[in-house]
């Protein structure tokens, strides 16, 4: 692929500078390669070209050819003579052709942008002070950088609906809409749910849902992300926070094994929203609505905010000490989780070896794959458990083997991480028969029956990595601190392991990785820091014999993966 591209490189000239680009690259992208920007609204790298906003107008010319002879026309100095088009051309709809010249900053180009900016503002309500988009609004930015700074419009502005409910999660302010059709194209092309369209004509054109339909699909909030202005707003985020106060942390959507790349936006320890982060190999610029809701678990009613031993509140340190004591006994089984990070799974594996575990289990969690960005495997990190050696086969949905081990008395102690064992098929009676240690974030039948319950962290409160369906290891970063009485799961597990082994054990992600990479497994040579923001593809061929459940989705082809692994 890469080689093929190289062969197709052609030379174009942008503002006097020659540049090699793959044939067919559009001029917005070509200019970007030079570190410059052609301002644009309707163009989106992952959607079809609409060419309607006209913000990206540039001057364009091609080397001239003599009509009679077909010979290239030359300037006096022997350079090709460029025949400039009389009118400006849209950069987004202009694909690189050999010898193409464009000017992005000529007086004509500048004037075209100023004109479009003026036009976009004549009927715009200019309600930035109460608009959620303010601070991340393309219209606001480009009006400052490409506008004339004054208005010549003295007529009455058009009036349109200000708060239309398009669906359960999206509210539309039609007056702010610049009719770029990104949301329409997204619905048709990516969500495959053609519900948006325009009614009326001209400047009275109004975005609406088709009669009897609503924008309710699980990708609806992507329209809010790509809306260049404050027309489409997230009903959840609406009027909650000015965006310039938000701190952004790179994260991963852990709702399934797709692992969409995300940004978690928080302020003063509170998460306000989760939005997608571009990864062309995984989720492009999209993510499901469901994954954006996950932050609500941070402050949910049943959140564990302190650890307990025998039901009474205690410090995390005491709880860890108690847990380690219990684990020194015989007949230990370990229930890890596909929701654990690679680092946690690695330490769990160390503990399992240390206590000579009678069994190590994971709980499978399946749902329907949507073929886009939610996969059938709702555990984000089963492959991590395989890669760290915690498990060697795909997990079952029920812990029936463990149940019989408890019934037979073979197992008398269970260490569970991030799983409710009752939900996984054990009875409360069975839980009462064993010494039970659990590290989790939310109350469950398991934490209620635990001898030691350690309050851990949600993904938003810690850092770690997971391995997605492609065997791509991706990392997420702590966005907000956890509740005062909680402890990082990794730190808790490391402390238990240290106590069991009597040796020091690293307790933060970076240092745990030194151990992980030293194992000589598929992580060799890797470090936490070394995992790129868009992840690192690992060699999963050792596991190609396993019958993974995921079907085809965006950038994932299950069969191809199996074939490539061979």
């Amino acid at each position, binding site marked *: 692929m890469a080689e093929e591209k190289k062969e197709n490189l052609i030379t174009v000239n942008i503002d006097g500078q020659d540049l090699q680009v793959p044939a067919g690259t559009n001029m917005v992208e070509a200019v970007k390669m030079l570190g410059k920007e052609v301002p644009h609204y309707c163009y989106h790298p992952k959607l079809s070209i609409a060419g*309607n906003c006209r913000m990206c107008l540039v001057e364009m010319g091609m080397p001239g050819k003599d009509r009679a002879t077909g010979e290239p026309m030359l300037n006096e100095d022997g350079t090709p003579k460029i025949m400039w088009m009389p009118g400006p051309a849209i950069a987004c709809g202009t694909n690189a052709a050999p010898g193409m010249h464009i000017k992005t900053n000529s007086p004509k180009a500048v004037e075209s942008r100023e004109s479009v900016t003026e*036009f976009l503002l004549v009927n715009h309500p200019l309600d930035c002070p109460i608009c959620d988009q303010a601070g991340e609004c393309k219209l606001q930015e480009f009006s400052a950088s490409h506008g004339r700074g004054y208005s010549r419009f003295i007529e009455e502005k058009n009036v349109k609906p200000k708060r239309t409910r398009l669906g359960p999660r999206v509210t539309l302010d039609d007056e702010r809409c610049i009719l770029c059709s990104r949301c329409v194209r997204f619905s048709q092309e990516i969500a495959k749910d053609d519900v948006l369209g325009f009614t009326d004509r001209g400047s009275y054109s109004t975005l609406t849902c088709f009669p009897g339909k609503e924008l309710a699909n699980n990708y609806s909030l992507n329209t809010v992300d790509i809306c260049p202005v404050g027309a489409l707003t997230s009903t959840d985020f609406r009027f909650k926070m000015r965006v310039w106060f938000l701190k952004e942390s790179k994260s991963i959507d852990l709702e399934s094994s797709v692992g969409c790349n995300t940004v978690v936006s928080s302020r003063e320890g509170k998460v306000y929203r989760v939005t997608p982060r571009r990864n062309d190999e995984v989720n492009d610029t999209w993510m499901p609505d469901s994954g954006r809701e996950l932050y609500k678990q941070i402050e949910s009613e049943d959140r564990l905010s302190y650890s307990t031993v025998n039901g009474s509140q205690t410090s995390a340190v005491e709880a860890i000490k108690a847990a380690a004591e219990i684990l020194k006994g015989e007949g230990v089984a370990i229930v890890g989780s596909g929701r654990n990070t690679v680092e946690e799974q690695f330490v769990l594996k160390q503990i399992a070896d240390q206590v000579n575990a009678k069994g190590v289990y994971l709980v499978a969690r399946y749902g329907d794959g949507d073929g886009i960005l939610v996969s059938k495997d709702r555990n984000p990190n089963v492959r991590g458990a395989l890669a760290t050696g915690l498990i060697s086969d795909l997990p079952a949905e029920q812990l029936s083997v463990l149940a019989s081990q408890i019934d037979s008395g073979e197992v008398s102690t269970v260490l569970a991480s991030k799983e409710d064992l009752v939900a996984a098929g054990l009875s409360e009676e069975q839980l009462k028969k064993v010494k039970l240690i659990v590290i989790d974030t939310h109350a469950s039948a398991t934490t209620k029956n635990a001898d030691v319950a350690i309050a851990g962290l949600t993904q938003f409160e810690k850092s770690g990595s997971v391995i997605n369906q492609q065997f791509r290891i991706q990392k997420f970063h702590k966005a907000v601190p956890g509740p005062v009485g909680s402890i990082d799961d990794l730190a808790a597990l490391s402390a238990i392991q240290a106590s069991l082994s009597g040796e020091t054990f690293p307790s933060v992600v970076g240092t745990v990785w030194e151990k992980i990479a030293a194992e000589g497994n598929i992580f060799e040579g890797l470090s936490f820091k070394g995992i790129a923001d868009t992840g690192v593809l690992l060699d999963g061929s050792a596991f190609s014999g396993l019958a993974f459940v995921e079907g085809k989705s965006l950038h994932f082809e299950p069969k191809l993966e199996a074939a490539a692994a061979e």
Partner: protein
Amino acid sequence: MAIHPKEQRLVLKYADEPGYTPSIDSYLAHGGYDMLKKAVTMEPQAIIDEVKASTLRGRGGAGFPCGLKWSFVDRKSGKPIYLICNCDESEPGTFKDRQIVHKDPHQLIEGMMISCFANNVAKAFIYIREEMPYGAKILDEAILEAKEKGFVGDNVLGSGYSCEIVVHRGAAAYICGEETGLIESLEGKRANPRIKPPYFPAVLGLYNCPTIVNNVETLCNAVHILDMGAEGFKKIGRPNNAGTRIWCVSGGVQRPGYYEVGEMTLGELVYDICGGPLPGRSIKAIIPGGSSMKILKNGERYKGKNPDGSEYDWGLEDIPLDYDGIAAAGSMSGSGGMMVLDDTVSIPAALANLMAFYSHESCGQCTPCREGSLWLKKITSRMVHGEARPEDVDLMLDVAGQIAGRTICAFGFAVAWPVQSYIAKFEDEFREYAAHLSDPNADRQAIKELACNG
């Protein structure tokens, strides 16, 4: 309508003959479908060559050479080739296609079948303006008649060639006449014109297949080119302006109507055929080719150099009544919808009326046309409502300049050209209007009545 002796009727030859009906019998009695019979015995390429040699130009607006358009069609794609007859006829001032459809539908069908055969088209469409329900009915009936006689449908005239014609009623918007908007509309979508590149109809047209879009009158001429031969056809009109044209004259003349003529001057049409201005009035200006085209002012001299180097110096009435003549005078023959403005017409009011139309008809897709057209409407209606400001004239020119040449489709020019040309030719009137009508004592009711758009 009585045929004027100075007319030279070809396409409308029989349409107004007493007793001539839209039925196939009338058409057959006048030699109808003989040319289709001839066509199916020819090599398709020979027909294309003949049309090319005839130098026939499109009658829909842009005047693009028809044979050249046909030669651009992508014949290697392996996809079906479609032909669409553009019968949206929505350019204000234009009412010629409806004469053909209402009075002589079989001529259009024959012209289409010849064009389809030449271009290996198996399915053709007539996209007819929504507001012509009667025409759609006539066409439907005519197609049935033609099918019965073997001129349309399977195995045309036993030649082994098959082609269906489907009549599709338009979506009732001006922009449905723009060929790529038309194609979107025909596909069942909103008539938003497509970006070119890449959506040139000849390559990526209807259903992304190669497509020919031609005007009704253009397609009818295919019959006459086969009949007269390219050489015979070229004898009508000046070089590069071959054939007759149907002019639709409206406004301040004694005999408005449609007239099919060969080579003549604008003055011959307006004064001799249409009888000149109404009694006691004089002609102020002429919009030659539909409301989108630039205005021509009476009394002005139109000077320039011909391609052969010779010079011309015309009065309005001397302008040759064809593509190149009107282009040389700085406008375009467009759709042939000629509007005559006499001395009772206020140019700013006329412009306000037009801007009301264009802002209503802009599809709204691209920013300059969408916002610019409504802005211009708001300025011009404010002007004619007695609140003109001296700076409005320059502002209007600026706004028009910000639209022209920066839009997805040519509608942008249709908005800008009237503004630019009306002001260029009648700047004094705009300035006076601004000065006078900003006068607080102005008769606002009279002004309101002038602005037909309320």
